[in-house]
């Protein structure tokens, strides 16, 4: 009644998968290759903007299409306790997105939900944030956990051009994610991560652009219902 060969096929497929995963896990060197959302990015040299002189200012296409209509999003930004890092949280409806960044190497992109005045955000890499909006929704207090650190914060609502910005582009062959927090006083904190976190270049908040390694990258405002 029972045939073995399909089961053998199934087992062989499983064994093959495990073997391939083990083989992959031995590949500690080699060129990191990421694609997926970042993949539609054309290389900087391949797509110069028609308006710019091709040889001098190649432009990296942003991977995420800028949202056409600005939505009603609230952005809160400020420094955490003990000057550990800078934090920005964007809220759109019942969704929230946050970026924690020390401007050098520690950063975390978090997403989550807003229920009433309670915020719960997490990142794929294990960071967690819990926060509470005050009654007039002008500030958020809470705690953020990144692996190895736990830090409290109280950040206040900020107005444009202050806020949270993000860019994702292929720069010189490496897919790079850049996050910026622009504070109410105009100061910026950001990290550009192409596999190795480094301080971000200055963001032109008017044009939403920055120059990274000679390539223009386009940033967009994080509105809160983003997915990273």
């Amino acid at each position, binding site marked *: 009644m*029972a045939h073995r060969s399909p089961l053998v096929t199934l087992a062989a*497929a499983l064994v093959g998968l495990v073997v*391939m995963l083990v*083989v*992959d896990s031995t590949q500690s060197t*080699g060129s990191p290759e990421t694609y997926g959302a*970042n993949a*539609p990015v054309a290389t900087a040299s391949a797509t110069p903007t028609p308006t710019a002189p091709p040889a001098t200012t190649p432009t990296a296409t942003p991977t995420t299409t800028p949202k056409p209509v600005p939505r009603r999003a609230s952005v809160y930004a400020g420094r955490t306790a003990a000057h550990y890092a800078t934090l920005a949280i964007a809220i759109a409806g019942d969704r929230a997105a946050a970026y924690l960044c020390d401007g050098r190497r520690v950063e975390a992109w978090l997403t989550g939900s807003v229920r009433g005045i309670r915020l719960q955000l997490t990142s*794929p890499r294990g960071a967690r944030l819990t926060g509470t909006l005050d009654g007039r929704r002008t500030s958020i207090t809470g705690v953020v956990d990144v692996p190895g650190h736990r830090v409290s914060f109280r950040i206040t609502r900020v107005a444009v051009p202050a806020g949270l910005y993000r860019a994702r582009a292929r720069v010189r062959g490496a897919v790079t994610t850049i996050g910026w927090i622009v504070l109410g006083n105009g100061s910026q904190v950001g990290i550009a991560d192409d*596999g190795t976190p480094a301080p971000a270049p200055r963001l032109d908040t008017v044009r939403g652009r920055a120059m990274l390694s000679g390539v223009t990258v386009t940033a967009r405002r994080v509105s809160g219902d983003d997915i990273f």
Partner: protein
Amino acid sequence: MTTTPVRASTWTVTVAVPLAAGAAVAVALGVYGRLHEPTGVAVNVAGFSSARSVKSWLATVALLLAVVQLVSALAMFGRLPALADRAWLGPVHRWSGRAAVAVTIPVVAHCLYALGFQYDDPRVLLHSLLGCVFYGAFTVKMLGLSRDDSPGWLLPVIGGVVLAAFTGLWLTSALWFFTTFGLTR
């Protein structure tokens, strides 16, 4: 009505168990893809420019084998009179299927290990979901094939799911790759 419990238990064994196992495989793949920190590192294959092109070509080979699967399955179910009752249909269907799954194994291993389950854009979300569905449905099909008393609809339906999921996987990966970067090695 003494047959009812017997029927129920037969249905449990022949349908519910394979479906549950397939669902478990799909969920396990998705959870692994989400929890495992993507390494972004791939095995480089000589003669190809990148892991992406290797994967695209392997997936295309699998797609051609999937066409063989469809034709041989139609013939086995008597839908292609010209090929009816040929003795080689079964072996061709079995071995082209095994080969198709075999060539997808390095691809899915790279997807899971280097990239993970992503939902940054619709294409990638769809691809991630279809990947889980494909191996879940494949599991259901293998378990369903292992029993003679499976209901007659199970194999065509699950086979159709496997084929549809794979076609979707190819469209959201290899076709996208070839149309974006050209037919590169």
